[in-house]
């Protein structure tokens, strides 16, 4: 193949187009193209790591008007996140298999996977922005068309919030490109060629413009208010993609664009950004504790988990960066699994309140097992994936600003304080008077297979994190301060 990276984002897009015309058989198209996409990602990943050395795959196109050029590149960070996208996309297709949904549902998921892949591949900031915004359109329809009761409000809120953030990001990019042109006489949007030192006194404005765009997406307190609504109202698979991959775009943007372009400024901003990240971990956990809706609780827990990722990444130490990045993958797996299971519950009983269930462990032992497993992974039990990421991210933060690490540890403790009682209330406590546990049947083979895939990965990362950390390390080496 001459253009493997272009194929990576075009394959799901072709899948979306095909699905749109397949009518009631669209799920087969989605399955085929998801598997093809996952296979391609695996192929690129294997080709990349041949001979024990990780190489960066580049694809450079011609330069068009205003220095816009088609350039894709894949280092281990990109491929890792694309692999997460492909894997979760396949999981989503499998998990939604029996839903009565029109062809558009499958087409939206494939289009979303394509745009996300483009975000992780693009090295031209123009294309980066285009892919970044293009993710909003399929997700808008996924939430708005197939979400639960308050979906219209959530869809519009989600779109407007993230768009507002990215408008500032775009203005910052424009200023960056214009400043480069003024200094060198060359128009370029190439991330590798741009140099923020051309900006002079406008540099802080541009930096904060970029950070604003990324922080809305992460989401960092106080820009998180769109998240609980969007995650709660989206269909189960939509929440998986939203929490599993779309939140990662924000941290990825920091790692790929903001930190390399503004090494000094981003370090100077550590007290503010790190403080907000640490606060997010505590705030997200406290909010999760107060929820009576299982899905909303998991949504708030995402804010807390992304706070850990941010703490690690912002510390700019080797273990913090790799741990924070690994935690991106971990959160995608564990939260993805939890959202799926809440979705399975909701499909069966059309309820998802903590008090709507009870005694489910005897009725649905498989569900109880997987839910317990994922909960433990999520709160960072040693031996499972969450522990590795959180431990490394916090130890990275500890070596730079200890106070932030202490706040983070408080967040970890609080995680157990909301997740375990919720698990207990739904699965072990006796069923209350209004309980709908009677409607819940145990997981079928397909659902178990999906959750096995996720759980085994959690266990693998937890027991043998070394290869995973080693995989991400080369891409992050340049960011270590």
């Amino acid at each position, binding site marked *: 193949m001459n253009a493997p990276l272009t194929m990576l984002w075009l394959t799901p897009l072709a899948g979306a187009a095909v699905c749109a015309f397949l009518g009631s058989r669209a799920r087969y198209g989605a399955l085929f193209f998801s598997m093809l996409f996952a296979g391609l990602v695996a192929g690129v990943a294997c080709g990349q790591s041949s001979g024990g050395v990780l190489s960066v795959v580049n694809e450079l196109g011609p330069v068009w008007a205003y220095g816009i050029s088609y350039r894709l590149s894949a280092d281990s960070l990109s491929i890792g996140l694309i692999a997460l996208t492909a894997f979760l996309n396949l999981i989503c297709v499998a998990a939604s298999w029996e839903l009565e949904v029109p062809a558009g549902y499958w087409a939206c998921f494939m289009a979303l996977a394509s745009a996300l892949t483009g975000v992780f591949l693009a090295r031209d900031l123009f294309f980066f922005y285009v892919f970044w915004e293009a993710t909003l359109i399929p997700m808008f329809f996924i939430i708005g068309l197939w979400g639960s009761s308050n979906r219209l409000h959530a869809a519009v809120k989600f779109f407007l919030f993230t768009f507002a953030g990215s408008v500032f990001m775009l203005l910052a990019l424009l200023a960056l*490109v214009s400043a480069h042109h003024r200094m060198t006489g060359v128009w370029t949007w190439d991330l590798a060629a741009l140099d923020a030192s051309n900006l002079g006194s406008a540099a802080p404005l541009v930096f904060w413009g970029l950070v604003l765009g990324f922080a809305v997406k992460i989401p960092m307190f106080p820009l998180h208010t769109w998240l609980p609504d969007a995650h709660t109202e989206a269909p189960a698979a939509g929440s998986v993609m939203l929490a599993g991959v779309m939140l990662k775009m924000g941290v990825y943007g920091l790692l790929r664009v903001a930190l390399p372009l503004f090494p000094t400024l981003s370090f100077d901003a550590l007290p503010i950004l790190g403080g907000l990240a640490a606060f997010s971990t505590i705030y997200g956990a406290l909010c999760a504790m107060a929820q009576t809706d299982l899905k909303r609780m998991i949504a708030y827990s995402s804010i807390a988990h992304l706070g850990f990722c941010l703490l690690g990444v912002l510390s700019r130490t080797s273990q913090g960066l790799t741990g924070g990045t690994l935690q991106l993958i971990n959160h995608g797996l564990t939260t993805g699994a939890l959202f799926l299971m809440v979705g399975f519950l909701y499909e069966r009983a059309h309820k998802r309140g903590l008090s709507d269930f009870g005694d489910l462990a005897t009725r649905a032992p498989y569900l109880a097992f997987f839910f317990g497993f994922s909960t433990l992974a999520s709160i960072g039990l040693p031996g499972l994936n969450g522990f590795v990421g959180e431990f490394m991210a916090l130890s990275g933060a500890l070596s730079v600003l200890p106070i932030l690490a202490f706040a983070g540890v408080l967040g970890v403790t609080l995680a157990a304080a909301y997740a375990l009682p919720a698990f207990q209330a739904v699965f072990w406590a006796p069923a209350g008077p209004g309980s709908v546990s009677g409607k819940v049947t145990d997981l079928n083979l397909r659902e178990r297979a999906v959750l096995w895939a996720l759980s085994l990965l959690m266990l693998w990362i937890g027991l043998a994190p070394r290869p995973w950390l080693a995989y991400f390390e080369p891409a992050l080496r340049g960011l270590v301060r």
Partner: protein
Amino acid sequence: MTVIPMGPQAALAAGVLGALSLGLMRKPPALALRALAVASVAGAMLLAVCSATGGYASAIVLTDSKSIGWQYLIYLGALPLALWLDGEDDVLVVLFLGATLGMSLLAAASNLPMLFIALEFMSLPAYLLVARSRPGTRGLEAAIKYFFAGGVAGALFMLGLSLYYADTRSLAASMDLTPLGQAGAGLMAAAALFKLGAFPLNWWLPDAYEAAAPEVSGFLSTAMKSAAVLFLMRLCELAPSAGFIAFLPAVGAVTALAGAVMALRQERLQRLFAFSSVSNAGLLIIGVGAWAASGRSSEGVSALLFFLGAYAFMSNGTFAFIKHSGLETRTQLKGRGAAMPAAAAAFTILLFSLGGIPPTGGFMAKLLLLWRAVDADLYWPAAAGAVSALISLAYYLGMTRELWLEAPHGPEPKPGPGAPLVIACAVGVVLLGAAPWLMSSLSGALTR
């Protein structure tokens, strides 16, 4: 290739005369009139392509790159209306071709009296077009309002022209202006801003766009707007030292914000898109200001050309959807996506494009225009333009939500013909957005 000076204008004039002659018959043949309308516009476009290779200039007309580029825009904006005209009413065909001829003359005018003649030539048929396109008194009222606004604009221009002449003793470009000439240039610019619908000179515009048939509103908001933008640019060229140029970015910023805010609460679709057109006019005025501030760079010209070209697709497409679907209000829009999936999907793409969401032509257009403003150090107008795009997203997204996500309400609409036009416009904006290389070669060819 031999260049025929004023070839496109001759083709349109021939069309006008042909339609008038056909109108003499007891029962004018509808098919022939339709064919004449389409052939005149298409012929003018073709002749403009031919004249793109050579420049021609006289005391009153010229064919420079801007003149050719804007003629493309005008014919592109006019073509959908030519396709809609049913030919039953021969007067409509004459009025339409007459207005297009006026715009075309405006694109070629090289001195002030010629600009004035062209301005009147395009405006007079446009008033009647608004009045006649839809039966009833509303159209008449709007046309009279439009006529008075146009009359004020014409009078301002005439007054400005005489002051300018009194100062410079010249009807062509002049560098040095005394306060008298400055006042003259300012008055002439006010006439152009009137035509563009700059805030607060936009009071006539929503009424005219709402009362006219949707396809006529599409014509006015694309071809007429393109002509008005060029009108403003010609004034900047003729009086490069005029004081009004410094105010253009601020005027544009206020217009962009005011249009977007006023569109928020509109219930009737045509009125909503009229205010959206005001908001877009604001962006264009920022663009003209940035172009003038950066020494009238060719990049500024291509940004304006690209914006107007993309807008020709977006606005004509949205008004074509209103015509095709027969839906008049946002409430009627609710849940109607499923009843006409192809046209509604195309309309959705057009809405996203108008909202400036990539990968569409509308995004590229806004990006290029605001980039020019950032590059000319017009940070505040650029930020205001971005904020207006953000505000406008509330109603573009709101309409998408109503169309697809809400439950149907009221009687089932009966879609008319015209779906292919909506789809063609949507394909146009997707091509413009997904292909920066298309833009680079196109604008490169036009501004050579």
